[in-house]
């Protein structure tokens, strides 16, 4: 039996607390219960000291020095920890990059006229990106350009290049550094594939070179796979522009057909969003007694829809099960990544129908309907129809919408920020030089049941903006900060005097929503644009990143490409590296001399803010700024 203290210790969110009470009443098990059941978790794995890479093992290293200090093959703690971290990076980079590839495939099929329902919405961005790949657009239709661009982007995934094309956006000094270190990313799939090779038994047994390749693998994500995902999503679905919306479980409606869209890739959800506005389907919903069709997003699919369409946001990672506990969801669509396999079981307690949509992501107790560009439009209409038909099956006694939604602004793409600044980044540079904005920090990443939900994100962000540090955010962190009310223009009152003045002048919140987790590249592109405008390296600027509640392998890849790009990064939860003193020291100290940035780990958001503020002060001093 959960006490009210237990519930408060699980989440700071009011909607979450109310739904945890209801989950307890409805006897629904959630991620927090499963986490408790897993305790104590394996100490060897926590330290990164267990290796399952081959069948001579599994092996463990005794961190207290009494038991074995090497695995069966002879790998010591340094090698095992570095190999394990390398494979985490590879998994994260592969996830973002495969997501990017799926978008390139849609772009190709749009160009070939095989994807009804999809279109090229941003011809300007298409042509600009094509130009970066040396594709001429003169006198050619957008489809022809898109076909050549799709071809060129597919080549980025291969192994025929010396370096990825889009690294040219990085400052010259940074690119020279990557080349000198031998970590210039060559092909998106190549670096992941090479990491899997290096970490096979008997290949790379030098922990330093393993970690360097880890950075290269992460760069193939940050300046390759993720970047392509964001760029092509913008071309197909629109470049985000500032938009007003609402957030938390209060966005679900008691009198409407509620459809939730969960996952990461906008390919499916964009089609659902189109179908949900079709007149005949809206009419059907009304015929079934509903006031309309209400779409809401969750996790990063939600962020993609929020950024471009202003579709309201139901919650982040740890809210996914609780959204179903409202009893008010007719249908949830999932694509891939961060979708807990427990969701089908939770949905079974209510009338909710769960639909899995990707050929590469299956889940227990969900109905599988594969979306492909050629069938997406029709399948979306069919399933939205079924969602509407599910509305009469809702059990009113089981429905509870816990709170009123909170207002928010989103849609701050780099293009939108530059436009708000009047067409160049110079006003932002001026504000930084003048000290009105002391620096900028990307607060990103997931939720993790090891940390009270949103506590890390919200408290870190609150302290940073109070110290005149602009916060840009993505992913689950962005949802947390919106839910806390930081994303309305009035939230400028929470900022320090300098940041408050800038926000007031531009009518923007002190925390800018930059999108989904692949959209972390929007943050690095903004950093690169600032550095390029100043003819400096990214590592010279008063910037930092934080992932206060990270849990996923993707977050590890993001953290590594941020650090390799020169951005100091503070993690909340400890990654599994402490088993090796050498690896830990390299990540937290040694990398400063290698790439001009390091990791730090600090689960307490108050202390994490202090680390970041001190870092920004050091960087400002380095630039001769007060």
């Amino acid at each position, binding site marked *: 039996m959960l006490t009210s203290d237990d519930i408060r210790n699980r989440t700071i969110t009011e909607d979450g607390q109310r739904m945890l009470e209801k989950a307890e009443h409805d006897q629904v098990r959630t991620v927090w219960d499963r986490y408790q059941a897993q305790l*104590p978790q*394996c*100490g*060897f794995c*926590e*330290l990164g000291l267990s290796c399952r890479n081959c069948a001579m093992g599994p092996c*463990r290293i*005794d*961190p*207290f*020095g*009494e*038991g074995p200090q090497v695995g069966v093959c002879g790998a010591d703690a340094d090698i095992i920890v570095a190999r394990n971290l390398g494979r985490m990076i590879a998994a994260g980079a592969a996830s973002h990059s495969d997501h990017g590839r799926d978008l390139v495939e849609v772009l190709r099929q749009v160009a070939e006229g095989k994807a009804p329902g999809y279109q090229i919405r941003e011809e300007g961005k298409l042509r600009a990106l094509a130009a970066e790949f040396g594709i001429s657009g003169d006198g050619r239709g957008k489809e022809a350009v898109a076909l050549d661009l799709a071809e060129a982007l597919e080549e980025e995934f291969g192994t025929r290049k010396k370096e990825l094309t889009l690294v040219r956006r990085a400052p010259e000094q940074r690119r020279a550094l990557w080349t000198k270190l031998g970590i210039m990313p060559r092909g998106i799939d190549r670096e992941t594939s090479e990491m899997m090779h290096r970490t096979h038994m008997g290949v790379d047994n030098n922990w330093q070179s393993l970690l360097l390749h880890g950075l290269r693998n992460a760069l193939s994500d940050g300046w390759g796979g993720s970047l392509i995902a964001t760029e092509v999503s913008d071309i197909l679905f629109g470049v985000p522009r500032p938009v007003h919306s609402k957030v938390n479980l209060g966005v679900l409606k008691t009198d409407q057909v509620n459809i939730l869209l969960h996952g990461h890739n906008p390919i499916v959800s964009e089609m659902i969003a189109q179908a949900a506005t079709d007149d005949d389907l809206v009419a059907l919903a009304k015929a079934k007694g509903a006031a309309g069709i209400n779409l809401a997003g969750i996790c990063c699919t939600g962020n993609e829809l929020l950024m471009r369409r202003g579709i309201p946001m139901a919650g982040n990672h740890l809210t996914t099960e609780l959204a179903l506990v409202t009893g008010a969801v007719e249908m949830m669509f999932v694509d891939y990544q961060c979708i807990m396999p427990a969701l089908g079981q939770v949905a079974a307690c209510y009338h909710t129908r769960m639909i899995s949509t990707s050929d590469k992501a299956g889940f227990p107790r969900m109905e599988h309907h594969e979306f492909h560009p050629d069938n997406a439009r029709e399948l979306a209409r069919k399933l939205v129809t079924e969602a509407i038909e599910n509305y009469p099956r809702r059990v009113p006694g089981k429905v509870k919408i816990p709170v009123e939604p909170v207002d928010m602004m989103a849609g701050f793409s780099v293009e939108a920020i530059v436009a708000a600044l009047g067409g160049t980044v110079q006003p932002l540079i001026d504000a930084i030089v003048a000290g009105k904005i002391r620096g900028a920090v990307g607060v990103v990443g997931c939720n993790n049941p090891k940390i009270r939900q949103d506590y890390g994100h919200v408290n870190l962000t609150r302290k940073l903006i109070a110290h005149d540090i602009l916060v840009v955010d993505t992913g689950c962190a962005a949802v947390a900060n919106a839910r806390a009310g930081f994303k309305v223009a009035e939230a400028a009152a929470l900022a320090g005097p300098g940041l408050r003045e800038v926000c007031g002048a531009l009518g923007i919140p002190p925390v800018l929503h930059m999108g989904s987790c692949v959209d972390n590249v929007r943050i690095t592109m903004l950093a690169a644009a600032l550095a390029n405008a100043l003819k400096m390296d990214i590592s010279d600027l008063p910037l930092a990143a934080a992932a206060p509640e990270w849990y996923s392998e993707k977050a590890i890849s993001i953290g590594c490409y941020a650090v390799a790009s020169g951005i100091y990064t503070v993690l909340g939860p*400890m990654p599994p590296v*402490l*088993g090796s*003193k050498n690896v830990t020291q390299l990540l937290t100290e040694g990398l400063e001399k290698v790439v001009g940035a390091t990791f730090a780990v600090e689960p307490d958001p108050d202390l994490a803010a202090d680390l970041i503020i001190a870092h920004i002060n050091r960087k400002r001093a380095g630039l001769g700024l007060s």
Partner: protein
Amino acid sequence: MEYQGLPRSEAGPRERVLVRIERCVGCRNCELACAVAHSQSRTLAAAIREEPRPQRRIYVEAVAESRAPFLCRHCDDAPCARACPTRALFQDSESGLVAFEAARCIGCHGCLMACPFGMIQAGRGSPFIVKCDRCPDRDQPACVAACPTGALLLEGAYLSMRRRDAIARLTRAARQGRAELPPVEASP
């Protein structure tokens, strides 16, 4: 004086730790938890950096195709206590455990030789020996709390579990093998 036994105020015998060998998966988390429980910092992340590094008092061994954790049996008539020339190791009448007072230990390692189970180890520096103290400040010893499969149990729980398992087995056999018999609960 460094006293590694139980607080004197705590009266009554303390339950010993028993092992359900068939449950052990050999994960060795009991060893880690034991070393952490006997560290200065009491956290895994900091304990692995302490000098001297904290030592475990429980040992997972793999023998005869099986694996199992083993720890001091706290014998009622303990060979180690009998072998100890300074009474540093002694039978504690209140707790019923074999207790250790480091201040009296001269580091002769007689107890190491006397223990038939090999459960006493040389200490790294001072104290001169280390053995299970059954975590005097915890109700559940650290190893028991850390065991993910319930292979390690306190004596009372162990016996009750064993009895219930055996009775359940016999009851099922009686029902399945002799279907004509009335249920055991209803038999005269």
